[in-house]
């Protein structure tokens, strides 16, 4: 019998992009260490393990300990990158709160397998609450890059940023959004496409879908602006207000519960600056289920046509007050 053929991580996934970028960045950043809970093959960390075995630490299937250990390592001047699935980051969130955020430790929590993008593993594995939960922790920066290019840039950026970060990667092959020349800055949204009728603000896998939605809307004569809001916290409130002033209608899109994530952050920023009609695309306060990511996105309302339909609703509300 030959060895079973394992489902390898996809070369186009954000987790692979993260793993490769981290490995490269660690060449010159000697204080970077990586912590794993027996899923390095799934988080992209296997690249780091191979290249930097002396700085790779295995903690077994014990995420709570791993998270607090990372806080302790940071206390000695190291820059720990602690990785596991997003749902297990939720398991260890109280350790992230006390031993990392409250103690203001320079730890990077990198969460693979977020949202419905997890696919066949089903509802138990699909973290749809992580952005909201980590966003509520004081001092925690929350990031969800859009594609492999941005993932690599963001990986370097968070390593050079002083302070605790929660960053999503992704399990499934990700559509390319950026070519060469993209500049990623923590805390800054990026206008991917300009437009005056409505703004589609998205993060993670929803950025590519929002851009596709803008194409659908263009065929109907609607001029949609698309913003990649890769940093959910601190939200780029200036850009959100500017989009509200200039387009008067906003749609948020995220592979996450509609409560408390990107949509919540955008709505909070708008309420404090320039209120306007907002429609929220995301999972509507239910758990997911098994299925392929694209099937699930269709069933739970995350695809481009859903974003386009939300844009229509937002524009309608703008026109009819």
């Amino acid at each position: 019998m030959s060895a079973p053929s394992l489902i390898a991580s996809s070369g186009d996934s954000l987790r692979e992009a993260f793993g490769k970028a981290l490995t490269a960045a660690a060449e010159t950043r000697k204080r970077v260490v990586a912590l794993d809970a027996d899923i390095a093959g799934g988080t992209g960390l296997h690249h780091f393990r191979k290249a930097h075995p002396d700085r790779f630490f295995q903690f077994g299937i014990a995420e709570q300990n791993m998270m607090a250990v990372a806080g302790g390592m940071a206390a000695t001047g190291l820059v720990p990158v602690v990785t596991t699935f997003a749902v297990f980051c939720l398991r260890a969130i109280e350790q992230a709160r006390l031993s990392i955020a409250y103690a203001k430790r320079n730890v990077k929590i990198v969460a693979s397998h977020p949202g419905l993008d997890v696919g066949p593993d089903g509802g138990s594995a699909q973290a749809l609450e992580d952005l909201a939960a980590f966003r509520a922790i004081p001092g925690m920066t929350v990031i969800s890059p859009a594609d492999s290019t941005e993932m690599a840039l963001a990986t370097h950026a968070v390593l050079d940023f002083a302070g605790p970060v929660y960053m999503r990667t992704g399990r499934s092959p990700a559509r390319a959004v950026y070519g060469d020349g993209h500049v990623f800055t923590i805390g800054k949204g990026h206008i991917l496409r300009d437009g005056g009728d409505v703004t589609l603000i998205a993060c993670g896998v929803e950025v590519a879908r929002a851009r596709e939605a803008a194409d659908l809307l263009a065929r109907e004569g609607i001029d949609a602006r698309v913003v990649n809001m890769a940093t959910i916290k601190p939200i780029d409130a200036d850009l959100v207000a500017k989009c509200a002033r200039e387009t008067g209608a906003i749609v948020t899109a995220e592979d996450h519960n509609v409560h408390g994530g990107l949509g919540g952050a955008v709505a909070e920023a708008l309420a404090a600056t320039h209120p306007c009609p907002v429609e929220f695309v995301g999972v509507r306060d239910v758990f997911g289920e098994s299925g392929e990511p694209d099937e699930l996105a269709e069933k739970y309302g995350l695809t481009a046509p859903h974003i386009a339909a939300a844009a229509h609703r937002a524009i309608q509300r703008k026109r009819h007050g």
Partner: protein
Amino acid sequence: MTLAAIIDAAPTPAVAAATAIAARTRQLAIAGIYRAGSGHPGGAMSCADILAALYACELNIPGGNADDPRRDRFVLSKGHAAPALYAVWAAMGYVADDVPLALRKMNTTSQGHPHVLDLPLSETSTGSLGQGFSAALGMAMGLRLQAIPARVYTLLGDGECQEGEVWEAAMSAAHHKVANLCALVDYNKLQSDDRNANIMGLEPFAAKWRAFGWHAVELDGHDIPSLLAALAEAAAHAAGPTVLICHTIKGKGVSWMEDQPLWHGSVKMKPEETRDALVQLGAGDADIAAWMA
């Protein structure tokens, strides 16, 4: 009395120093809890000798300077014993008496549970049981990776050892053979609501630690020479981590507090109770008057 017995009975300078630090630690902890109007006296009294032995004789923290990367680290994983931690620092002269005496007061650094951003000697922020142990493990591993020959000590409560994270950390420290880590357990047999044995039994406790790969030593946690000997044994054990299971009495030093579950919790101490406790703990009249003013 024979000459040998006299020599045996005479404390070494180290024992004498730790004994004096322990007495002052208990006094300041009780005074702080009284002034705060809340706090956990039972577990502060039970660990005072352990803290005194560590700070007076074992930890190498030159000048009490928490910025020195080569210093030994102590993490109070049972963060609710903060009154005793602040008190032992004051007894050592690392902080002013104001620190233990301002316990739990707004706009001070004396948080109800140790917070490293307020008091750097805390080393990490604790108060959620289990986490200080993991953080101490992380420090020990971080120091080892950077070839800094410092040691890390952490004190756990016995009830704390009901947390799953404690055993995650225990498994992990043994797996990684983290010999520069020493855990101590303040085994006073009581926890918030009742005796450990009635809430969630820990026995066979030492056997559990040994099964998890630790070198485990059981001792009387109020006997300074035993504590110093056990700490020396831990430092000499190079194969992996050591745990010192310190058998203690909750409320030790205050007769009516000893072994009473009532005195675990966050309590408001009455003036007459406080005065009697401070007298039992050997506080001077001037200190009692000043602290209770």
